[in-house]
């Protein structure tokens, strides 16, 4: 175990990880994380434009994890409730990486939605966003399927994601956003 911790440190150092967390995602945790990141962005003296974009995308990524925890019917102590996220900065770009378990039967739906978003141009994304905003159904907690569209729009990048099979029930979903 003592050997492993240096490995963690070294990997995080090389990827210039500013902040990382693994565990249960709660509303209070998100409040703290966002406050920490806001002051880090302040200290890094980013221009307001960059700061706003990073903050915005971060909010969407983290709240995706939060709503996911909420929606999936899981036992409290179940390890599958846990999620991981890391925020790093390499050269001039910020990286937000998230990972969480997803039930196998939901993989197809999510991957279909992400593929659809990735097939659209920026102009088409704008139209799609407006369409979902105007007509889309909203879940009880307010997630309306807009988060991923918004991330793709604000970053101007294709969504970089992966589903790794874990067992007969779960896959591990990871998302890597560059801003």
């Amino acid at each position, binding site marked *: 175990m003592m050997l492993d911790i240096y490995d963690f440190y070294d990997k995080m150092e090389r990827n210039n990880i500013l902040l990382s967390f693994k565990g249960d995602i709660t509303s209070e945790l998100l409040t703290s994380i966002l406050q920490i990141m806001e002051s880090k962005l302040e200290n890094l003296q980013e221009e307001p434009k960059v700061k706003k974009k990073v903050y915005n995308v971060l909010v969407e990524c983290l709240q995706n994890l939060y709503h996911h925890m909420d929606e999936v019917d899981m036992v409290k102590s179940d390890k599958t409730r846990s999620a991981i996220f890391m925020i790093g900065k390499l050269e001039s770009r910020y990286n937000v990486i998230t990972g969480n378990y997803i039930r196998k039967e939901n993989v197809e739906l999510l991957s279909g939605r992400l593929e659809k978003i990735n097939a659209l141009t920026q102009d088409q994304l704008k139209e799609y966003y407006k369409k979902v905003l105007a007509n*889309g159904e909203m879940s009880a907690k307010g997630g*309306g399927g807009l*988060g991923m569209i918004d991330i793709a729009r604000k970053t101007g990048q294709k969504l970089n994601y992966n589903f790794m099979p874990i067992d007969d029930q779960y896959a591990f979903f990871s998302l890597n956003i560059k801003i």
Partner: protein
Amino acid sequence: MEKILIEPTPKTPSINFDFNQGLLEIKGRSIPENSIEFYKPLVESLEKYGSTPGPTTTVNIHLEYFNTSSSKCILDVFKKLEAIHKNGNRLVINWYYEQDDEDMLEAGEDYQAIINVPFKMMQVEE
């Protein structure tokens, strides 16, 4: 009707809704996880206000950030305002955005495209 006065928090904006003056102001950041719960009282008051609105209703939206969960609720607010406008009442919506914040300007334009009410885009210096 009672005035609505909500203080800002790190995740929710300040709301000032003065029925007698016909003035609604939303200011700050709107990034709550559960935005429906936060906006419900405002949407309900706007519904009531809509039955006897003032001669002119002025709405100032000055948001620093908002999440996609809030975006639907903000649309609900605009829909209530659209109804007031449709009934022939004067309505002004001022959408404030900071000089270099293209995303916020674009967000205002998105709403403008959905809602049938004239928006005024108000650029402010940081």
